[in-house]
């Protein structure tokens, strides 16, 4: 097919794919790492240390996270600026989701900026001033101190909810925009799966956040490792 792609077409496709592949993937890994705080300080700090030991970390951070993140958020705000929301007169579910995707996107632009400066770089005055990056041994203590402040904790919970929704609904949008899901029945099933994913990611994320202020987060303590009794010496058979 001799097709002519316009700039807008290519930028939109890039916007859709960056949201899923580097950023979506990163969010899953991020929540996985955070959840290690359920098992206590040592477990979380060890996980942070392991991230520090990833080869080519700086390149991965720049080209796998920061560049796609800046592109996705700046272009996303430009897309949002084109919207003429009308959910008051046309209050259909998908129309509200359309608005919510833009609203969470704009909120996340500011939240992620705050989050990165607050913890990755330690640059927000009157809050934490020690970057987590490079201080793996202090990682848990830094986050734990921040999350003792009620409004910071509330802000992070909002951030997790917004990200979980934006990503999960983003999967649905990706599926229809790339022609993977077409018919109405398939759309319904995909949307249900995405709502389930949003709920799961929200729970995992919020539970991980609470793990920094309470052992094992919101889960009963017996499922977390640190509370288990160490095996008696000499009991191992091999």
């Amino acid at each position, binding site marked *: *097919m*001799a*097709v*002519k*792609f*316009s*700039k*807008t*077409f290519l930028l*939109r*496709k890039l916007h859709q794919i960056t949201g899923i592949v580097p950023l979506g993937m990163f969010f899953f890994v991020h929540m996985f790492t955070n959840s290690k705080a359920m098992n206590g300080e040592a477990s979380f700090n060890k996980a942070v240390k392991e991230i520090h030991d990833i080869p080519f970390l700086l390149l991965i951070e720049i080209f796998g996270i920061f560049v796609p993140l800046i592109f996705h958020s700046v272009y996303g705000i430009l*897309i949002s600026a*084109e*919207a*003429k*929301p*009308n959910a*008051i*007169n*046309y209050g*259909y579910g*998908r*129309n509200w*989701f*359309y*608005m919510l995707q833009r609203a969470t996107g704009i909120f996340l632009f500011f939240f992620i900026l705050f989050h990165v400066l607050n913890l990755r770089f330690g640059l927000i005055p009157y809050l934490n001033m020690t970057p987590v990056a490079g201080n793996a041994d202090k990682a848990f203590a830094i986050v734990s101190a921040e999350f003792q402040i009620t409004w910071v904790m509330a802000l992070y919970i909002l951030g997790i909810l917004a990200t979980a929704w934006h990503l999960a609904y983003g999967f*649905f*949008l990706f599926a*229809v*925009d*790339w*022609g*993977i*899901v*077409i*018919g*109405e029945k398939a*759309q319904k099933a995909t949307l249900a799966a995405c709502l389930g994913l949003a709920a799961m990611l929200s729970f995992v994320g919020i539970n991980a956040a609470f793990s920094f202020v309470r052992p094992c987060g919101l889960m009963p303590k017996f499922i977390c490792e640190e509370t288990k009794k160490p095996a008696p010496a000499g009991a191992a058979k091999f």
Partner: protein
Amino acid sequence: MTTNAHIEKKRLETPPATIKFKIQRREKEGAPAHWETFELQYRRNLNVISALMEIRKDPVTIEGKQTTPPVWDMSCLEQVCGICTMVIDGKVRQSCSALIDDLLLASNSDTVTLAPMSKFPNVRDLKVDRSKMFDHLKQVEAWVELDGSYDLGPGPHISNEVAQERYAFSRCMTCGCCLEACPQYGDDNYIGPQAIAQARLFNMHPTGKMTAEDRINGLLGDDGITNCGNAQNCIQVCPMGIPLTKAIYETNRDITVNALFGWLKK
């Protein structure tokens, strides 16, 4: 709608003695818009057009001011031509099939608000210029080439399944509801579902398929299909029940497979 929905329809049991019509007026394109309210005696089986015709006979506002008769477009009066489309109580629809009883029941008031579609140039009062939609049809080459310098012979057969689906798309009457309700459409930055569905209609035609590329190219521009925001209002407001989102997503698949990843076949 089920076939006997009209039997189960709710009736306005205690109608008001009079009904008010709040109408957006504009003298000509570019002139400022203002609102005028008219009052009519209630009677059974009024629709928006019969009410407008009643107002036109003696255009005096509720304040007693003599004014010009309101202008609107109408033709078929049976919801198949699409020309009488306007925004009624905040929602876009055909005024010929908008029954006053239903509107009063839905809004639980004695007032009906009428405004022209906002996404098209407003010629006067409730009349708009919808020629932009015909430009969109030209942009996607929404036709099938039939004539040649020689006899092209009979075309290939179409399976019943494809014919059924094409029939749904062929019911488009270019009314503009989908574009008016679309939160992405406006300022010429998005071609909108109407033209995408017509491109799909002709891309599904066995003869039209041969020039599918030209139609796809018409949808890949800066104002193309990629500006769809998936709010899906189009499928909700379409008076002909056209599967517009299916047309958009089928075309997306076409573009992904044949255009975006087309280079992998080379």
